[in-house]
């Protein structure tokens, strides 16, 4: 992927994102000087640059306002880390300055660097010295092994088995066409359209299932986004603390204590969950700060993979609760799972929980395990299996491309379009699938390896 373009201008923050005294932003590639001149003052003339010399520069916004007084060091190709024209820009480490500078760079044509892209370019341009190169050699070894495990090219994993079977299916479907196209002496009988379409359809569904496993696979990789919501004071923060295992949110009996979205991650049954405790959905909130908090809660619900709607057993169901529930139901995404859970089982009940629904007490811990089981089930349910899940964005993209090509092949075959077009689409799907199976153009694999470097180095 890195290789799609090895010359264009890339930019990235090389130091950490957290507040620090100084931040380092690096640029590398074509038109480096020209591009940064759009937001640096004084303008720099490429011919007058003294490579490696520290220069005072001002970062200026589109409106001409001063963003920061910074220091810049230019390097001219081939004498730089990447072998290309480069700028190292040292600015003050405020998140605002960093973000603003990066967005200016993007605006004027620099692309956000992919992980490892600077080092990758250094390699492509033959810039690394002997020991560094050997270090990278070792790295390639280790990273290749990692890929063994993670997903693909190496056998055994369910995913690669599946990919192999798709490849075989595509190859066999393709062969049916190729043999007819190349058959000078009409030895081969006509294609049985009905059964051929059925096979294409089956393949389409297979690939589609794998592609859609990405949603969940990716979810597992990055953490299941779980939002806890409910009326003020129904026990959301206590639940978050229970699930996360320690006090995080400030708990108080006063409605509206949680004014912002509180986030916490926890591992349940081996899956990663990130929990957000939202401000209560108090529609009558008058406090501006609380209102803002509710706004943010809405946003969180929209993005959630799982929404836990907490109902307080010690209170009767109020009109507000009903409204809030309807509100959440309407707000959450179609694919998100909604769990209704009844809290405060340790207190005297003001109502009966719905049969079969989880009941818990954050105080005593009763019912928490059951709730965790329900959460874990979400990750493991149905056809979904972690071992065959597509967790890499690249694999997902390849599968989606393959799927798209198979769909086109199907359409063309369905409407009796020219055979070589169906074949061409199958060839494309094969090359997309090939990218996963490891039978890829090598530069992509190499790029993948380098992407395991941290950004900016």
């Amino acid at each position, binding site marked *: 992927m890195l*290789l*799609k373009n*090895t010359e264009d201008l890339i930019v990235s923050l090389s130091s950490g994102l957290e507040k620090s005294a100084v931040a380092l932003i690096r640029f590398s590639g074509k038109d480096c000087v020209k591009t940064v001149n759009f937001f640096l003052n004084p303008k720099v003339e490429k011919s007058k640059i003294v490579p490696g010399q520290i220069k005072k520069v001002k970062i200026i916004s589109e409106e001409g306002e001063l963003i920061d007084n910074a220091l810049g060091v230019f390097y001219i190709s*081939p004498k730089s880390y990447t072998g290309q024209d480069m700028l190292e820009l040292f600015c003050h480490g405020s998140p605002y300055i960093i973000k603003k500078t990066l967005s200016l760079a993007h605006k004027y044509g620099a692309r956000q660097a992919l992980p490892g892209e600077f080092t990758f370019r250094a*390699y*492509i*341009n*033959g*810039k*690394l*010295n*002997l020991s560094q*190169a050997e270090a*990278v*050699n070792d790295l*390639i070894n280790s990273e*290749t092994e990692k890929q063994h495990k993670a997903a693909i*090219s190496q056998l055994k994993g369910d995913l690669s088995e599946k990919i192999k079977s798709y490849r075989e299916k595509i190859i066999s479907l393709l062969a049916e066409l*190729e043999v007819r*196209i*190349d*058959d*000078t*002496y*009409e*030895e081969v009988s006509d294609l049985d359209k009905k059964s051929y379409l059925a096979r294409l359809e089956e393949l389409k569904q297979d690939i589609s299932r794998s592609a859609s496993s990405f949603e969940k696979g990716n979810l597992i990789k990055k953490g299941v986004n779980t939002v806890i919501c409910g009326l003020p004071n129904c026990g959301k923060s206590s639940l978050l603390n229970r699930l996360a295992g320690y006090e995080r949110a400030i708990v108080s009996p006063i409605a509206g204590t949680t004014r912002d979205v509180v986030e916490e991650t926890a591992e349940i049954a081996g899956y990663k969950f990130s929990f957000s405790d939202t401000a209560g959905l108090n529609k009558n909130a008058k406090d501006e700060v609380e209102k803002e908090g509710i706004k943010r809660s809405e946003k969180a619900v929209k993005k959630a993979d799982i929404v836990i709607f907490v109902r307080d057993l010690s209170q009767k169901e109020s009109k507000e609760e009903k409204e809030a529930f309807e509100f959440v139901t309407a707000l959450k995404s179609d694919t998100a799972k909604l769990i209704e859970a009844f809290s405060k089982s340790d207190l005297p009940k003001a109502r009966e929980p719905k049969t079969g629904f989880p009941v818990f007490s954050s105080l005593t811990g009763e019912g928490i395990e059951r709730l965790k089981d329900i959460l874990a089930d979400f990750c493991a349910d149905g056809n979904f299996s972690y071992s065959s899940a597509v967790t890499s964005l690249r694999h997902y993209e390849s599968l989606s491309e393959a799927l798209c090509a198979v769909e086109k092949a199907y359409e063309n075959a369905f409407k009796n379009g*020219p*055979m*070589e*077009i169906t*074949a*061409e689409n199958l*060839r*494309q799907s094969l090359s997309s699938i090939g990218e996963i199976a*490891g*039978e*890829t*153009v*090598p*530069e992509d*694999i*190499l790029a993948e*390896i380098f992407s395991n470097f941290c950004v900016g180095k």
Partner: protein
Amino acid sequence: MNKFIYPQKYDITVIGAGHAGCEAALICSKLGLQTILITQNLDTIAQMSCNPSIGGVGKGQIVKEIDALGGIMGINTDKSALNYHMLNTSRGPAVRSPRAQCDKKLYHLNMKFALEEAENLRIIQDEAQELWLEGSCLKGIKSARNVFYESKAVIITSGTFLKGIIHIGHFSFPGGRYNDPPSSSLSDSISQAGVKRGRLKTGTPMRLNGRTIDFSLCEKQAPDSPAEPFSVFTDKEKLNSRIFLPCWITRTEKETAEIISKNLSSGALYGGKISSLGPRYCPSIEDKIVKFPHHETHHIFLEPEGFQTLEYYVNGLSTSLSEETQTLIVKSIPALKNAQIIRPGYAIEYDYFDPQNLDFTLESKIIPGLYLAGQVNGTTGYEEAAAQGLMAGINACLKIKREEPLILKRHEAYIGVMIDDLITKGVDEPYRMFTSRAEHRLMMRQDNADIRLSEIAFKIGALHKNLYSSFKAYLKVYEEASKNKKNIKEILGPWRAENAYLAAKNDAEYCAYIERSKKEIEKAKVLEKVSIPHDFDYGKIKELSNEAKQKLSRLKPKNLSDASRIPGLTLAEIQFLWVIINKKRGADEKGN
């Protein structure tokens, strides 16, 4: 025997006057080099030893490419054809392929005339016996009559003649083709110089007397009307004023299969006489019966061999079964019930040289100045042979003229696909062209061969400058038509505006796919830019497997793209190579 050193020193010697040899000799003379063509027999120049057809799926595209590059095959076919048929018309234009049956005698005579007529070319009837080497330096060729022909380059196009053995059932005898003696010492001479040698097999069916065929039981395959000529230089109207002959189709019966199954042991193939590999894609009838037992019947095409003969070629019944079995097979087919075999089918085994020993120019990596083309490189088919002859000839000339070699890319021409396959993958069965071998099939069509390649022909001197202006006008029409403008109707010269319109229309039909192809081609160029030094020592790289080390050391790829197409190399190995080459380059730059 007295040694006679031929007084004139030539630029290029071509051995063999088959389809490869004729192309090689003619292009060399056309490019202005003094050329001598040595053939065993002037009366078998451009002999169509097997079927009477030129073209076919994948092959028709090659003939068009040969024509676009300044070769002879298309022109000679148009002069000799007795039937034209465009194949794959039920499919799209990319896989539509022209084919023509020729009068075999006319094909021979027309080619002989073309050779005789060519300036700078001398033809001589003699037999090349061995390479004339001084140390490891190739001086020329020594003939069977002890004549020494000296030249700067030698192109060998020996077809099936090197140690050829013919089999009809269990009856076998040495021969390069029926009635022609094989050539034995030349093969040893090349082998002794260190070129890896192998053995392949091919075959041909029986021929029948047309008077004894019941055509009323056959399906008639009328020639196309109008016929589309192969060559740009053929006048289409004149061509279509000629008379063409039909071909005929019939089928094998259940009984045919039974006869074959019962008499397998009578044949050379299943009787254990032949061990070398034949073409999977052009199987003998016994192969078809054994390997596809569920097929109840197989097509047979009856193709006339000429205007002045009743001899018919029985396409589909290639065999090395005994003559007795062949008689029974023919009898079992209703239309051929009373048909008389006038020549039996036979199989032939012959020596070939591993094409992996060649450079992409078809020059030997082991003996500089020696070029090999055609079946001697493990291919099958007149068209494949001719294309190699042409490319070997062009590259031999370019080398003598100290110009850049002409290496066609896989996305430029079928010829490029073929040579790339031969050099990087080698052969384990006779190689024939298919459209499925081409990754960029939709952009490499028979209708745009001239648009793809004729510019190259001009650059190397194979297209005369007077014609070039006509070609440029044609290109202009094509470019305008691609922008949907059709303001020019006529072009002065051989190129026809209607073809330009057709090519533009077909581009448009595939445009989304062609765009994608172009992107892929751009992407692949990255690897091409990473060149590998010629003296690169693979042995020292511990990350490479022994197999990879051997293959790389033997094939000496010029860049990473060539290396990546060598089968058996893993991606990890290509990556190591990349890193190491860059490391070396980085170190070298620092050193400087």
